[in-house]
């Protein structure tokens, strides 16, 4: 197992290298010029060229890529063209918000969606199943920003229970921190809950029709034990897979959620950097996100062995 993990971690290095090359190339060929944005409307073409040169943006592709890669290998993601701040510092500043949002969303989504899916499978074909599936379709269909606006209107403006916007750091206390993240997490979790609930239901239906479940029932094992001890554990592999895949959707959704609730997270940092063509920031963020995504997939693979002892690496 340890060898497998080490091999997988080693395999991330060429993956990250390819991601780096891809992102750098994409930005190189994409239209837009940060120097022109910085210089503003009044600037002459000559002034823009001067700024471009001072930022080193006029150097050949390979020189720029080589320079950037060299610094990345030394743990330096570069400096933002606009703010002049180290990219790593900007990411560090933003990471707690996004990590907090994702953690709460993940925990909340699993806590809500898995029991929902199990219940729907248990009561398959009844009105309970239909209600749960309608809710799942709703979660899939309604855009994240619409859910966000509705929640903010209801629970921040009409009923002033939560703040409309902003993030409170955990260092200011657990409840203020949680309070600032409840509405964003519910917003972001909508699609995730729907996804997990549907997969849980489908997988549980399959497992519940297996012989060993029938045998357990015949032996007089209780319904709760059948569902949560025997069936759910065997249904866990696809559920864990979908949680891992859904992580990418969570990253995408975080961009919108952070904008709607004005959370200073990595999602907004990415959007702002793209609009401004702040290349070092875009490259740094994509690299970090890619690394996290690879890591999540590794964790998912390891979890398979926990839920299904037949799987061995």
């Amino acid at each position, binding site marked *: 197992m340890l060898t497998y993990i080490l091999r997988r971690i080693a395999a991330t290095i060429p993956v990250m290298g390819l991601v780096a090359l891809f992102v750098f190339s994409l930005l190189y060929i994409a*239209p*837009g010029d940060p120097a022109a944005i910085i210089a*503003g*409307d009044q600037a002459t073409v000559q002034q823009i060229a001067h700024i471009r040169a001072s930022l080193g943006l006029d150097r050949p592709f390979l020189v720029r890529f080589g320079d950037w890669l060299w610094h990345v290998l030394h743990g330096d993601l570069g400096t933002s063209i606009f*703010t002049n701040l180290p990219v790593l510092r900007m990411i560090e500043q933003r990471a707690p918000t996004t990590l907090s949002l994702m953690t709460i969303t993940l925990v909340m989504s699993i806590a809500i969606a898995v029991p929902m899916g199990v219940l729907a499978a248990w009561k398959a074909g009844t009105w309970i199943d239909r209600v749960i599936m309608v809710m799942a379709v709703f979660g899939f269909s309604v855009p994240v920003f619409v859910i966000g606006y509705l929640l903010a209107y209801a629970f921040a403006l009409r009923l002033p229970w939560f703040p409309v*916007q902003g993030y409170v750091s955990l260092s200011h206390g657990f409840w203020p921190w949680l309070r600032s993240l409840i509405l964003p997490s519910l917003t972001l979790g909508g699609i995730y809950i729907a996804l997990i609930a549907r997969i849980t239901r489908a997988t549980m239906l399959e497992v519940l029709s297996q012989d060993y479940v029938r045998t357990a029932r015949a032996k007089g094992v209780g319904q709760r034990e059948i569902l949560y001890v025997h069936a759910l554990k065997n249904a866990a592999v696809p559920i864990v897979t979908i949680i891992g895949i859904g992580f990418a959707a969570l990253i995408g959704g975080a961009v919108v959620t952070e904008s*709607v609730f*004005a959370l200073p997270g990595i999602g*907004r940092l990415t959007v702002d950097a793209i*609009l401004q063509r702040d290349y070092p920031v875009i490259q740094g963020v994509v690299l970090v996100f890619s690394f996290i995504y690879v890591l999540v997939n590794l964790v998912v693979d390891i979890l398979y062995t926990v839920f299904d002892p037949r799987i061995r690496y």
Partner: protein
Amino acid sequence: MGIRRRTFLGASAAALAAPGIARAASVLKFIPQADITILDPVWTTAYVTRNHGFLVFDTLYGTDATFNASPQMVEGHVVDNGGRQWTMKLRDGLKWHDGAKVLARDCVASIRRWGARDAFGATVLQFADEIAAVDDRTIRFRLKQPFPLLPTALGKAASNSCPMMPERLAMTDPFKQVTEMVGSGPFRWNARERVVGSLAVYEKFHGYVPRPGGVASGTAGPKIVHYDRVEWHVIPDAATKTAAMQSGETDWWENPPADNALVLKADRGLVTRVLDPTGLMGCMRLNQLVAPFDNPAVRRVVLDAVRQEDYMVAVAGTDPSMWHVPTGIFAPGTPMASDVGLKRFTEAKDFAKLKTALEKAGYKGEKIVLLLPTDLPELKAEAEVSADMFRRMGFEVDAQASDWGTVVQRRASMKPVAAGGWSVFSTFWTGLDQLSPAGHVFLRGQGKAGGQPGWPSSPAIEALRNQWLAAKDVTTQKELAVKLQQQAFIDVPYIPLGQFFQNTSYKKSVTGVLDGIPVFWNVRPA
């Protein structure tokens, strides 16, 4: 249970002292138009950076609400040698935020740095034989010719303003950003608490010496600070900003769009009004290097096709109090504005006639590439109205949608449209940018040498501008401004599209908000 006399006295004393000790810092929570990503007000013309600049940096002169320059950091000035020598003396007690004294040589270096980047600043340097620090408090300008606009230039409120910095910062390359924020303005920059894209914090600078006497107006007069701390909260979404104002989480929103302003106006706890009466001036730029707009006759037909109301309704809505037409090349209501030649912008248009006129002018069916930015609603609206107008005139229009970042790169291209060039784009400037020919970037005719996308060439406009800069009195300036407008409608360096206004919204409990650009002195809690 009894109470001991000493305990009672101690408790009473503590209670009396408490209000002084425990007074909470007063905080003003402001939502700016965008994040302050660039801190150096000389390095960029972004309006948000200009506003930030006026908190941290002071200027030698200020501009009041009637657009007059008056001494700010300087006590005053003496003009000698027939207007060719200006001697300015700094006020006593001015300090940088690091505690050092503000010296004349700091100011000289600051003026030079600004002059390397700003159009009006470049004019100052062009007129100057020497800018020198005579002693610690005295700055002397020796000029090639009289230049009565010197205080106006040094005190301009439009981008780029002329911020004073310590010499060590001002001596740096003007094409590289200064990120160490040491100014002598009424607020200090709190770098520690900054979260890019979310929060910027300014603290009252207790060493600031406001100008004695007078009334605060625009960027002129005494800059007296009443809040201990000003926080800029960056909120990207307009609906969220509206909700933040309605819930009382923020105190002041710089520029709510028209739709959101309607909601805010209905809120009794808020004041929602126009802050800057000079508004924003829509402008259409035609590329004069490529056909068909290299032909002045074609440009003049387009000029005649523009109905400014169509643009303003698209940009600012149907409430006519939020826009003004017709507008010429200077902001309406300001000293240089005139109505000469503006009737064309309000007349109903006969597109069949315009089509014929276009053919007569020499249009040969060339494709025009219209740059359409999708991420800035006002510019998108302007471009969409233009696209429709051009099509109705008979142009073959290729409206290319992209974000603003792509537009600003594309418009720098001098190539033909088939090789990645362009034909037309629209933008807007603040009215402050179009107060006079001095800082009016679109009112130039230097051709390729000017380096301005569109590359308009008009020796007549350049000659009139030079005469205006040298004019000795306002009457002459006004006469020349009229001639400039007439000439602009012949050579068509750009086409004015109307003036629109932006609301600002703040809590009723916030008072003393000054007209003009958002400034944070004079503002106080009720």
